[in-house]
């Protein structure tokens, strides 16, 4: 085993890359859950986004168009979930599972011709001056624009939820949909929009994996990251900045275990590969003591009677 093969600066830089898809998916789901909806279909939306983005990027040669298509793909798929849960009042847990199964199927079908293709390279955007700082510059300021976008999105969600009227209304709908309805707010419309925002974010997260992190297409390549993103929202107690922290933590675990695998660490590969999932469970257990910050209407169907 050769521990010196692990370069801490590269490790931290790749941690950021590993954290980004998680962060995107989790921040989207956070908004959905804040509106009182539990969408368990994150995995399905991510994988759909991954193939939509990959296919468009390969066909047009433009990774940016690919990202756009991924966001749209995720949003369109989430619209199905919105129709099921908001209009047909289906059980949210079952609908979320359906979305994941459906997403896995549709992505496999769409991805048929793309196995083994290579995605067009995504340009890095060094932030002038900041990226020249030794170590820190390389870790934080020498990435592609999606990384910066994900961080800005987190900041934006935090600001909107905390300081704006839109955020207040969203939280109100998630806390008590009957009261929000009585005040004349369009509960269903607000939730549909939140669900689609979550879908777009998850799609973007998926495309980040297929276009930038890997970058190629294989069936089921999101490998549970969507589910980890769901766990992350619980871990973060529905707070955006803690989602960021959690994403970095999970990204770190993942990168570390991959590096240990590469370095030929004494533990068999399979056990290292289990570690992100085991750590997710551990974190869920630790965080489950405090449920107080969960939106009160989370997972409940809303039907305006009369």
């Amino acid at each position: 085993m050769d521990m010196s093969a692990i370069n801490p600066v590269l490790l931290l830089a790749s941690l950021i890359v590993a954290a980004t898809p998680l962060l995107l998916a989790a921040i989207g789901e956070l908004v959905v859950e804040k509106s009182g909806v539990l969408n368990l279909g994150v995995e399905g939306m991510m994988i759909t986004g991954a193939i939509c983005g990959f296919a468009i990027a390969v066909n047009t040669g433009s990774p940016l168009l690919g990202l756009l298509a991924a966001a749209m793909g995720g949003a369109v798929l989430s619209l199905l979930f919105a129709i099921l849960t908001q209009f047909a009042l289906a059980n949210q847990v079952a609908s979320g599972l359906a979305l994941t199964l459906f997403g896995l199927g549709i992505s496999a079908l769409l991805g048929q011709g793309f196995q083994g293709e290579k995605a067009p390279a995504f340009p890095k955007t060094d932030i002038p001056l900041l990226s020249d700082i030794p170590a820190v510059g390389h870790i934080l300021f020498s990435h592609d624009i999606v990384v910066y976008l994900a961080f800005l999105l987190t900041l934006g969600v935090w600001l909107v939820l905390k300081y704006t009227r839109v955020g207040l209304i969203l939280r109100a709908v998630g806390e008590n949909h009957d009261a929000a309805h009585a005040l004349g707010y369009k509960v269903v419309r607000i939730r549909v929009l939140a669900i689609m925002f979550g879908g777009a974010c998850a799609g973007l997260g998926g495309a980040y994996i297929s276009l930038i992190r890997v970058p190629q297409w294989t069936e089921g390549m999101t490998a549970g990251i969507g589910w980890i993103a769901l766990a992350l929202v619980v871990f973060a107690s529905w707070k955006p900045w803690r989602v960021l922290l959690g994403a970095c933590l999970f990204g770190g675990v993942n990168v570390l275990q991959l590096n240990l695998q590469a370095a030929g660490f004494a533990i068999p590969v399979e056990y290292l590969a289990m570690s992100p999932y085991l750590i997710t469970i551990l974190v869920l257990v630790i965080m489950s003591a405090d449920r107080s910050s969960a939106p009160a209407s989370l997972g409940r169907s809303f039907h305006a009677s009369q």
Partner: protein
Amino acid sequence: MGTLLSLRGLTKAYPGVIANSDVSFDIQEGEVHALLGENGAGKSTLVKMIYGLVKPDSGQMTLRGQPYAPAEPRMARASGVAMVFQHFSLFEALNVAENIALGMENPPKMRDLAARIKDVSETYGLPLDPYRTVGDLSAGERQRVEIIRCLLQDPRLLIMDEPTSVLTPQEVDILFQTLRKLTAEGVAILYISHKLEEIRTLCDTATILRLGKKVGTCIPREVSARDMAEMMVGTTLHVPERAGGDLGPVLLELTDLSVKSPSEFGTSLKGITLQVRSGEVLGLGGVAGNGQDELLAALSGEILTTPNTVVMEGQPIGALGPTARRKLGLLTAPEERLGHAAAPDMSLTENALLTGSVRQGLESNGFLKWTKTREFAEEIIAKFDVRTPGPGNAARSLSGGNLQKFVIGREVLQLPTVLVVNQPTWGVDAAAATSIRQALLDLAAGGTAVIVISQDLDELMEISDHFGALNEGRLSDIRPARGLTVDEIGLMMGGAHGMEVAHV
């Protein structure tokens, strides 16, 4: 002062029910106008139409001579109509200022809003801290949040739906002073209630509804409460009779019962001690949210305690679950009918099984006897006059009153040694309420110890031998019910709950 709002021929029908039929009346500026009627008389639908939550099938409204047809509450608010709901539409996890901002069209910045809340609340004698989380407020304080939310919009008409049902008598006085101050400024108040004495003290005019129709108008100060009641109910009221026998031995005893509430914004019980004897009806009053649900849960076995805090006929049962307690004869009926006392989507037969399995022998070795269970359900339906096509119907298909009769009947027919009921007649029409109270009294006459937890003081005074009140999870001294004055009861319920009295 002139007419503010006039209603002409308002009609609204739901499948199977006509909620309102051809209702017409006028509300004058600066008056307190009572809307009086039983549960189900159509009061709620009528005010929902005025507030834009429900669209009338036919009929017109005019506001200050202009046609008025609000498509949604937003439009009603813009026209100067505001409403304080019976079940507060508040967000527990948000603070007072955020709650108020949500009810406004163009709220100012949070800091300015907080200042205005302080300002208005002090002007009208309803002090309130804008930064407190609503979940931590008492029922009376929550109502203040709703009222202030309305007042910040300078309403011309303020609709209040049963505002005093959550208040102690002292808090009612504070509220009435505020309302009088508002009417002096020309604001009209539409006051919905079925409490007659209250209407006689406060209101200038009363419109009485029965079965969706207007049956009369009167000036409450000039009519007796009894006359109004008969207009409201349509028949002469039957007052429950009781045998008034001697009390037997103590059947249930609570000693220093303290329990932490299982829900975040619930009320924990603190050191409750009481005794109830064979043949006794013990009435426990108190404003909603002062530990009633928790006390019922501690008695039903949903919350467990140390064995000796709950003792029944000398046997410690604090650590026993619901089934074991039922076996011993301690039966309970919680307040929330749908979802707690009964499963909404299950049939009445299945709901009869829910609590009846042990005492009625509806199972053997875990296997269910469906025929016997159906017979038990049919017996409840027959003896308690539950209106339903049959025991195969789902619980939620029953009206509130009928389901309540079923729930109470289910426990009464199992011949309990001790029966505990929470809000036995809440939302039930007068005739059904009378029959439920009579059933409780008959049970007591037969030697059962009955505890009635209720927020309806009139009901408690009518049927209780002894009276106590819950206040913030504590129980007052228990005193003989006969001869208690309203003031004494009010103080037992916690006076004004530490709320500042109005400095008007």
